[in-house]
């Protein structure tokens, strides 16, 4: 683990600019997906507002970097993200289920249009970001952000706060009647998650030379982050990171070769998660880790057949059964 971290820290010394950019995107997704799952995975308040807070971070940086140093501007972006989410949370965390999903989806559009309107009134449609921040610094900042969000999320999951989040996801009424200040817990964690999203947006904005509202507020971020987190599995702190890696690599590959078909792949990815991996990849990894049996593995390799009643075969049958139930194939 430590060795891997050292390799990642030293990577900019010998990697090409392309590889660096790919890793920057990867870390951004890992941090975003981890932050998303920290709140939405535990409480099951499925948020599509990632793009909103991400965009708020971009705008906060674009405005702040004129007056403040870059580190201070990044900090300011995180604080603004926290505050915006706290205000939004106060008014909307009463909504449950699909109402919350739809509201958060609309929130991105709302913030987008409000900023658009304010900018037009200001007679500016685009803003320029002039900095001399190198790709290596961006790489290091996002690597730190990704690692810190995983460690932070893991740490909180072991505290009373993390316990309260899970209890809210299980049954909010019970949590309330067992002494959990549910409103406070929800708002605090929603805002903490949003501040990470805003921070990531602000760091990525350093690479843009100009921004406008439609660049900053792009719903694709919300969906891809959600899919990355669910693909990995939102039950563990490191789960979303596991999902973000294949998703970013796939999206990189597809957008190079089949730029127009990527949404289809994304959609298929979602179908696979829902029907075949409701818990994401992490439960598979955990089970494989706990039940690793070398002799059995050798037998599978020698005969080339999965043993009867194996995890994979069972999962496949269960997924097909779910599909059958839905579509009567």
């Amino acid at each position, binding site marked *: 683990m430590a060795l891997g971290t050292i390799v990642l820290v030293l990577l900019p010394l010998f990697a090409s600019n392309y590889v660096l950019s790919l890793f920057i995107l990867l870390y951004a997704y890992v941090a975003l997906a981890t932050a998303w799952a920290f709140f939405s995975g535990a409480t099951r308040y499925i948020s599509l507002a990632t793009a909103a807070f991400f965009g708020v971070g971009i705008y906060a940086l674009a405005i702040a970097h004129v007056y403040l140093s870059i580190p201070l501007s990044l900090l300011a972006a995180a604080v603004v993200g926290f505050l915006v989410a706290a205000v939004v949370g106060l008014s909307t965390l009463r909504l449950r289920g699909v109402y919350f999903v739809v509201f958060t989806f609309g929130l991105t559009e709302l913030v987008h249009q409000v900023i658009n309107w304010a900018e037009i009134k200001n007679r500016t449609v685009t803003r320029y970001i002039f900095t001399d921040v190198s790709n290596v610094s961006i790489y290091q900042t996002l690597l730190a952000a990704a690692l810190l969000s995983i460690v932070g999320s893991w740490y909180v999951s072991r505290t*009373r706060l993390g*316990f309260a989040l899970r*209890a809210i996801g299980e049954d909010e009424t*019970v*949590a309330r*009647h*067992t*002494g*959990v*200040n549910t409103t406070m817990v929800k708002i605090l964690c929603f805002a903490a998650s949003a501040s990470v999203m805003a921070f990531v947006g602000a760091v990525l904005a350093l690479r843009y030379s100009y921004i406008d509202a439609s660049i900053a507020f792009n719903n694709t971020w919300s969906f891809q982050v959600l899919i990355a987190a669910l693909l990995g599995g939102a039950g563990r702190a490191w789960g979303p990171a596991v999902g973000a890696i294949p998703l970013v690599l796939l999206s990189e590959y597809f957008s190079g070769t089949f730029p127009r078909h990527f949404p289809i792949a994304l959609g298929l990815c979602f179908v696979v998660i829902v029907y075949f991996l409701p818990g994401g990849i992490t439960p598979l990894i955990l089970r494989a880790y706990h039940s690793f049996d070398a002799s059995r593995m050798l037998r599978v390799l020698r005969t080339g057949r999965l043993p009867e009643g194996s995890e994979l075969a069972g999962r496949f049958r269960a997924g097909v059964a779910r599909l059958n139930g839905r579509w009567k194939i």
Partner: protein
Amino acid sequence: MAGPGDNIVLSVRDLRKAFGGLVAVRDLSFDVHSGGITGLIGPNGSGKTTVLNLITGELRPDNGAILFRGEDIFGWPAFRICRARIARTFQLVRVLPHMTVRENVMLGRMFGSEPREPTRAAREAVTLLERVGLAGRDMLQGGQLTYIDQKRLELARALACRPQLLLLDEWLAGLNPTELQTGIELIRVIRREGITIVMIEHVMEAIRALCDRVVVMNAGERIAVGTPDAVLSDAAVMRAYLGADDAAA
């Protein structure tokens, strides 16, 4: 007014709650004496669960006063009422299905009154589980338990909040005769430990066996109060349960 040293734990005064035009609880008053078991009975739809939801902060009363140990808890949020030492169970069993049995109880220990850190809460949860008869099941998922065991788990979770007043909403409903005897015994043990109990119940056998006092509600109003025997032979109570004609016969 109930004050310290008085033996009235909970005092409900002129409590009122309406849902639109329907008045679910109409100017209800009753007292709960310290260390005893008070039954809250009445036909279906008479407002018993609403009263319990008003006391625990699930619903906000329209009017009235709820004094707990002399303090007016009217309009407090549910979590604060729990921390003030009023715990409850639910009419339809609510365990946290994907958390372990132990975690279900830890929740109460970590957030009720006298909250504890996770490691200590885990230790104390195991002791509580033994008390309600769930020893050895602590690592199962809440949803894997049988119906009666889920009821035991709910009770353990409520006890983990360290209540002085425990509100049971039809906790004995749906049990078979053997389980009912076990359940009655369990409630007796809890009372002996000094926890005051208010129980909504339909099982008359349990009411006779356990309750010192019974408050009878009908259509949101109190129609009788007294010992179980006195109340159950009351003409107004008969009418409410059986209808006017059958009661006369």
